[in-house]
């Protein structure tokens, strides 16, 4: 296993900073049925999502609630021929493995919303590592913080949203 946090390992991780990784395309076009299912799950009666006249006047036609952006990338529970499931935030799991850190938490998650998502859009995404910290010790243990961006765009290449995740991969302190 790698993961001793040596200078080479850190250099390998930092070499990935700023590089686009894990380009993916959504498995299905954005559709209104799922928008209504989502709104129903939280009893969201915003007429922008239920009333065609309001949607036409405000957004030039139906749009999806911004908070649904990651929904369009979660794979079906089953699909013909698929043998393994891609992990969301694969860069996070790659860093855990690279540094040999058995535990990890997300300390916060920010989403910035840009061009509205419209029915029929087929969204695409990629991940970008932004930073990896030096080794730090917190009450959870000793490890490293990293910041990962997940970038979402539509089929025209317009930026739809960016998620910023701060992760902390760590090893629990051994009780003395």
């Amino acid at each position: 296993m790698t993961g001793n946090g040596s200078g080479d390992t850190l250099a390998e991780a930092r070499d990935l900073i700023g590089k686009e990784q894990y380009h993916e395309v959504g498995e299905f076009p954005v559709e209104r049925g799922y928008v209504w299912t989502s709104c129903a799950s939280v009893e969201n009666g915003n007429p922008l999502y239920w009333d065609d006249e309001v949607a036409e006047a405000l957004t030039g036609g139906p749009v999806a609630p911004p908070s649904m952006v990651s929904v369009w990338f979660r794979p079906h529970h089953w699909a013909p021929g698929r043998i393994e499931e891609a992990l969301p935030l694969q860069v996070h799991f790659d860093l855990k493995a690279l540094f040999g850190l058995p535990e990890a938490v997300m300390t916060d998650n920010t989403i910035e919303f840009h061009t509205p998502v419209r029915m029929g859009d087929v969204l695409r995404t990629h991940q970008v590592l932004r930073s990896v910290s030096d080794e730090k010790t917190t009450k959870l243990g000793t490890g490293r913080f990293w910041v990962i961006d997940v970038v979402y765009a539509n089929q025209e290449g317009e930026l739809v949203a960016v998620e910023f995740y701060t992760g902390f991969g760590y090893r629990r302190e051994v009780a003395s």
Partner: protein
Amino acid sequence: MSVAAVAQLLLEDVNVGDELPTLDYEVTATTVVLGALATRDWRPMHHDKDFAVHRNGTQDIFLNTPNQAAWFERYLTDWSGPRGRLARVTFRMKGSVFPGDTMSLTGVVESTEVDEVGCGFASVAVTLSVDGDTKTTCAARIALPRTGEDNPWARRGDQWRPSPTHP
């Protein structure tokens, strides 16, 4: 429904320190499962109590994060009206929400501003709590119209700046 008939909050109606109306909601197993499926989250801790208890060590299935995001969005746009356009949210998860809990969403306006391109925004601190214990916080920035004719959704390209220039 005509747009004119829809209640809409304007930026000028909002002041720092304003409290949003509290939303109380009794969470059931259906709430959790419906939320998980609506966000295409098939992981068993959000629908299988045996898995949640025996594998995750939690007391029950619990609300997933993307569905909580949908709850926060609904809470904010219930307040703002449909021209309210969510710009940016930051979540911090502190605890889980289970069936049987009554979750309360509360919010307070922390600041308002008009940015360099004339778009009005309110920053709102939203808290999801159960019996007074904070479970999730959400720092939200939402665009609000400045006049009855203004519509933040009409902004495109450089005219839409979801993050403050100097955070």
